[in-house]
């Protein structure tokens, strides 16, 4: 890379470019598709720039405003954040290409999708790099508002209900998070993560704020007791929007829970065990609900509730072998983003072609849309944790850490969860291979939609092979 290109401040550009893109797309509604797509590529390029900087020069630090930690706000790009940035870049570009083709028959919706999507992307990139707890509150809000507006884009009754419920839950979560920030500032006089890590001395004045912040983030992640808002919102949104929500947005609040956990490393068995149990409940509840769904998008949305449960199984396992449990959970989050994104895009393509997404009427999708079904199948394989896929590697790491500590019960939960996931994925595939009695008219599906879904799914499978090179990136981060 020529020197001046390498010298560019990619961390800042990864946030500024999508913001500028959003403004440009808002001001020029007729050219929104072109602006939106080109700024998506630029943003992804910036994110890749940050990743390359990390690989060549190690963790990056950027003191915004030049004031430094206690007074100003720092941006930090360490192993965990560059993995998340990379994830957002890949899923983001795939969804952008898909959306351009998806919104062609909806000329009124396209100019509204792009500015909101670029605001969401800016919020994600800002959130993954920020090392300031209050700044994270603002990024969470920006993410929440643009996500809610994207869900409401569909305009139908259920979508508006889903968006409203999502907004209320998101605001409630943010306020709980803000109470935590207030108490942290009261106790330690700073909101910078690195300084908080040094000053945190345990006891009630750390436990309560941390509890409030994590509770707020669990609301926004949609972990089991707080999952009620997720399926209607993700299920009724447009396909590209659902892919973004399930793939990236819920991961952002999960990433924050991890970031807080790694910063304060709370000891004690109670909270991790609770999170683990909630995770297990989410796996069973989500999978059983997914099995009962009649519509494909709702099935995939409930699958998100289940797969999120997996991510929290790492907490009770992080006692003796933190390294393996955390990398397993983070790897699962990564491959879930790819796989779930691909699944929603595939569901969108099926919906566009058949005009409906009734599961038992998936009349021979395998012949009509082979690429889309391949995408759905590969994504399903990764979600179920069947080899060779990223999901398998993630589950293998969690299982290893469980068996190494003799905690067989968690291993059993992970394995049975994988079986349940396979059941509802293959139920759909079963119908996709079968000819249904009723005739359904066929609409034209642009090739871009099928190919992006397939490439994302192949990404999820490819993650199964690149683990030994991807996991060392996390070395500096895990406790």
């Amino acid at each position, binding site marked *: 890379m020529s020197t001046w290109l390498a010298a560019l401040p990619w961390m800042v550009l990864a946030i500024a470019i999508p913001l500028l893109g959003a403004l440009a797309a808002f001001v020029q509604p007729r050219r929104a598709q072109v602006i939106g797509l080109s700024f998506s590529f630029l943003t992804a390029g910036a994110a890749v720039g940050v990743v390359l900087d990390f690989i060549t020069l190690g963790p990056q630090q950027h003191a915004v405003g030049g004031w430094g930690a206690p007074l100003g706000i720092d941006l930090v790009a360490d192993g965990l954040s560059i993995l998340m940035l990379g994830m957002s870049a890949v899923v983001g570009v795939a969804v952008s290409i898909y959306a351009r083709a998806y919104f062609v028959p909806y000329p009124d919706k396209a100019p509204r999708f792009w500015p909101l999507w670029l605001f969401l992307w800016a919020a994600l990139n800002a959130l993954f790099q920020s090392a300031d707890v209050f700044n994270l509150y603002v990024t969470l809000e920006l993410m929440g508002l643009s996500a809610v507006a994207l869900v409401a884009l569909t305009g139908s009754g259920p979508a508006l209900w889903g968006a409203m419920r999502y907004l209320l839950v998101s605001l409630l979560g943010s306020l709980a998070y803000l109470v935590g920030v207030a108490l942290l500032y009261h106790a330690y006089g700073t909101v910078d993560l690195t300084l908080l890590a040094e000053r945190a001395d345990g006891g009630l004045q750390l436990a309560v704020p941390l509890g409030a912040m994590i509770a707020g983030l669990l609301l926004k992640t949609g972990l089991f007791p707080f999952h009620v808002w997720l399926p209607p919102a993700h299920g009724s949104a447009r396909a590209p929007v659902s892919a973004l929500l399930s793939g990236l947005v819920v991961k952002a609040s999960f990433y924050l829970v991890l970031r807080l956990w790694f910063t304060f490393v709370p000891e004690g068995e109670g909270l991790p065990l609770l999170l683990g149990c909630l995770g297990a409940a989410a796996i069973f509840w989500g999978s059983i609900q997914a099995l009962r769904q009649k519509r494909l998008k709702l099935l995939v949305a409930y699958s998100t509730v289940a797969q999120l449960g997996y991510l929290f199984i790492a907490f009770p396992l992080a006692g003796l072998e933190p390294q*393996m449990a955390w*990398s397993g959970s983070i790897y699962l989050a990564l491959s879930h983003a790819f796989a779930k994104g691909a699944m929603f895009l595939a569901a969108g393509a099926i919906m566009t072609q058949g005009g409906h997404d009734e599961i038992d009427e998936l009349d*021979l999708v*395998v*012949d009509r849309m*082979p690429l889309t079904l391949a995408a759905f*199948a590969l994504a399903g*394989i990764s979600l179920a944790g*069947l*080899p*060779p896929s990223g999901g*398998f*590697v993630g589950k*293998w*790491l969690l*299982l*290893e850490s469980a*068996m*190494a500590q003799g905690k067989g019960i968690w*291993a*059993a939960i992970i*394995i*049975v969860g*994988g*079986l349940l996931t*396979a*059941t509802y994925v*293959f*139920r759909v*595939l*079963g*119908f996709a*291979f*079968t*000819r249904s009695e009723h005739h359904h008219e066929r609409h034209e599906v642009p090739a871009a939609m099928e190919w992006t879904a397939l490439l994302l799914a192949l990404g999820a499978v490819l993650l*199964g*092979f690149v*683990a*030994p090179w991807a*996991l060392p990136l996390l070395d500096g981060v895990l406790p």
Partner: protein
Amino acid sequence: MTTNAWLPLLVLASSLIPGLIIFTLPEKAVAWRITLNLGGALLKILLLVLMMIGVFHGVNYEFRVPLVPGIDFVLHADALSLLFVNLSAVLWLATTVYAIGYLEDSPNRSRFFGYFSLCVTTTVGLAMAGNLLTFLVFYEALTLSTYPLVVHRGTEVARKAGRTYLAYTLLGGVLLLAGTIWLHALTGTLEFVDRGFVRGLDLDPATLRMVFTLLILGVGVKAALVPLHAWLPQAMVAPAPVSALLHAVAVVKAGAFGVVRIIYDVFGIEFAAELGVTLPLAVLAAVTIIYGSVRALFQEDLKRRLAFSTVSQVSYITLGVAIAGPIATIGGLAHLVHQGFMKITLFFCAGNYAETLGVHKVSELRGIGRRMPWTTAAFTVAAFGMIGVPPVVGFVSKWYLGLGALEVGQDWVVYVLAGSSLLNAAYFLPLVRAAWFEPPPDEWPHERNFGRKETAWMLLLPPLFTALAALAWGLFASMPGTPLDWVQFIAARKYGS
């Protein structure tokens, strides 16, 4: 000892690449599809011959790449894997020729042959797996690539059969995964070693027995051991080439091969015997043999009868392996190949009858010998092999099994073998008698005549070739280069000689 990493990969690629290309071929590109299919099959056999020569000259074929922190993805061509790889490659060629003929003008053949090639790729990969993790990866991949073949017809019946197939095989996969994880937590390594890697470490026997049970049940699903066999008869709804390759060679043999790997290369046969796990397995295998044969007796549909016969025959291999004796091992491993050839012949013939005369029921076989002499001749040879009548090769493996059991003092096994042979006779001989000696019905269900020949040459050649092989290996059993000879070379290395 030079290490060559590329040949194993090439062997895999020789069916993977054509398969992926076939997926993209439009339906009417018949010529391209045939060349790709046959080219891939022949190339694979060629590469295997090269590899066998190499193994003789002591070349170590191993492809190793890190997959999960601490464990690698290993393709290693040792003597045992070559046995199974050769079996798959040869029978894949035969079945491809047969499938091309069988699916003459049926819909979406590109999809069929694509998954067909994927399935063989996973079978070959499973055979060449160098450690238990790679074996697990291919074991699950085999399920995923065979499912579309089972539901190929797209009917509701096929979907339900596919659902049962998945329920069992995914459950098996999960059990195998649980066992593998537990084993890795105990031993720290999963690499296959000639006399087992669990032997040296002094681990608590009770845990090891539980791990053994998990692993065996995991592979037992595909090896169709009694409680876990129900998927096999239902999967007969798939087209004939699928039942032929999958349920005579790929899927069922993968299960049996898994049992062989676990007992010989994970636990080691002597250590397993010490643990006392081999006897219950032998009993389970014996029960399966008898149960399979009894159920076969009452099957009216020809393919279901053959399916239950497979359930019984595959357990000969498990039985041979579970009797901890060198000669029994030879019998078991040899049967791996022999049963493959004999059973595939029977399925080919069943497919021919159905395709040419629309004959599906056992009762409709009367006088079929006159109408289709060559097919019925192959059927008879294979049937005799199944019963264990010399000179067909089935007799050889049963002979070694009996001898091996006596050598180790397990006399009850001989009675099981004798009993099952009688049962085999009971459900095969009436068919053969009816086919040759009873007058044919005045007109067949729906007959397609092929002019002078009894059926398309592509449908006739494969069964004749496999029947001939079964006969030849039976007659010249002791000659070098027969599967029996290769098996003796393998068995020698599995025991502490």
